[in-house]
């Protein structure tokens, strides 16, 4: 089943390979991957779509959270609640990400 992983990351050199390595170790291919820098110094957002089962997805999320470059793993359900959908194509729209941030920051 396709799962969407939403991450806030420090986009320094090597961060993507650290993230990808967790998927590789489980033999999971990435279906889609999108990164966008959102602030000076490399902070940005990463969206990954990959095939996984639910238990593995939960484990991967926890393992992603412990990476030094990963600030936050967003809950896809929260994203859907804000945008009405967590379809990756919509998420690739910068506005969607910004809307998520504004809501989370209580503005």
């Amino acid at each position: 089943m396709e799962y969407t992983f939403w991450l806030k990351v420090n986009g320094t050199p090597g961060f993507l390979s650290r993230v990808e390595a967790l998927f590789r170790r489980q033999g999971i291919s990435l279906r889609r991957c999108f990164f966008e820098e959102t602030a000076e110094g490399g902070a940005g957002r990463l969206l990954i779509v990959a095939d996984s089962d639910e238990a593995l997805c939960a484990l991967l999320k926890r393992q992603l959270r412990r990476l030094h470059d990963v600030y936050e793993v967003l809950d896809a359900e929260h994203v859907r609640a804000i945008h009405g959908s967590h379809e990756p194509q919509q998420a690739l729209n910068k506005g969607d990400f910004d809307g998520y941030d504004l809501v989370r920051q209580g503005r």
Partner: protein
Amino acid sequence: MSTALRTDARPRERVRAANLLAEELARQGVTHIFGHPGGAALPLYDALFQTPGVAHLLMRHEQSGSHAAQGFARATGRAGVCLATSGPGATNLVTGLTDAYMDSTPIVALTAQVTRPLIGRDGFQEADILGITQPVTKHNWLVLEPEDLIPTIREAFHLAVSGRPGPVLVDVPRDVLQAQIEPEEEAAEPSSRKRRADPTALRRAALAITNARRPVLYVGGGVISAGASEEVRRLAKKTRIPVTTTLMAKGAFPESDPQSLGMLGMHGTVYANYAMNESDLIIALGARFDDRITGKLATFAPHAKVIHLDVDEAEIGKNRKADFPLVGDAKTVLHQLLPLVGAPDTGVWWRRVEEWKAKHPLRYEQGDGPILPQFAIDRLWHVTNSRRPILTTDVGQHQMWAAQFWKCDEPRSFITSGGLGTMGYGLPAAIGAQCALPDRLVVNINGDGSFQMTMQALVTAAEARLPIKVVIIDNQGLGMVRQWQELFYDKRFFSTELRNPDFAKVAESLGAAAFTARRPEEVDAVFQKALAVEDRPAVVNVICDPEENCYPMWPAGQSIDAMVIEDPRRARGEKS
């Protein structure tokens, strides 16, 4: 660390970055570096030459340097430091980094890199050590701007010991080391607030403990990392729950205490494994339910609910579902938990546990024949115990016998390679531990196979006049592999017999005192002779029965029903 901030705005004298790095290491409290020089690392070595207070031990292989750093860290809880040059020097650290990652050991690895213009151009002794070590470090950095060097070093030391400890690596190009930079202002120590558990989850867990009838405290290495041994002891005493420890947690709860069940798992005590199997509540503290503990997961502890406390949320539910997950620092969370728990009614449960203990003690019978490894280790414990030794082991049968017969009452006194099972670990780890704690007796129990993996480290120990005691359980082979060939490959012994060198001669040539025991009655005397050596390492080669196997044991991936309690050859009268 001082938190004083510089207030004047005058430009400061620029200094070579390598010198500032060496000074920063001293400021971080580094007393020993375990390293090996090379071309790219020369600026740092030149700086270390000029930096008092930081000793450098010249290891004869970088892998030993990484294990020595681990030994230092495990004995103290502080980050151990290893140092290697670019290319092969750096890649030789990989095994130690992986070992440290598996066992959550805080080490800072410093590697030199080729100059920035040569990176990515396959320069001499260039290796992409960042890419190579990414999966086996908490984090790693390549410092491309000289001004980033000191902040990166500070971050590395902080990250290595914070949260779940682990290895980090900082890769520094030679021209960055040689650059002239302004000294960094001293920074306030980063905050390291300990994570507390959710109060509601805590109350639920406390209630489960109070209502349990067959509870077991399953204590892992995370308890030692968190410095939570005293809290575990208080919890055990308040609730009167039996305590079993993993290999990594030996000493986290006193094994001389009647509530201790010793080590559990594949070669653990029968009673610890039976207790886990029949438990109705497993209280897992800083442990990760790895396969050497659970065997076949589907049948492991089938009646038990699980309270799982770990600082790393990725461990919760990874292998075994947690009914009561608690994420947080073990010491902090146990402080929170202690006032909430009541003592469960464990009277019936204890009678059952005591029956198992009486029926299936760990035992061996040393006759007139060859020395049994268990006997040698047991005697070594008796001869040294009054001196509160720190033990390091290598990996193999001797490691499991040490886990069974070496009773630990103190945390950080049993140092071994648990998760990765790295042969060659024990001797350099002993060097690191002895450097960290020069007044303690440090003993290394080794195997003849594993000793040969890193035995050249003895030269370093001799140079530094470290009085470590190395006891080789010499069964003339790769005993654990041989045991598996005997039990699971129909005795097709292949590539497990070792034609060993004369270890006494080897040890003497490397600068150590050397002794050999061939008969049971010689064992105590040679141990005493080794203990009397104070100005250099001492090696005792104990020539043991090559056919002795390690029991109890259950085959990998099988459930506790498959546990073999005693050597079947003895039951059949085929072995004395």
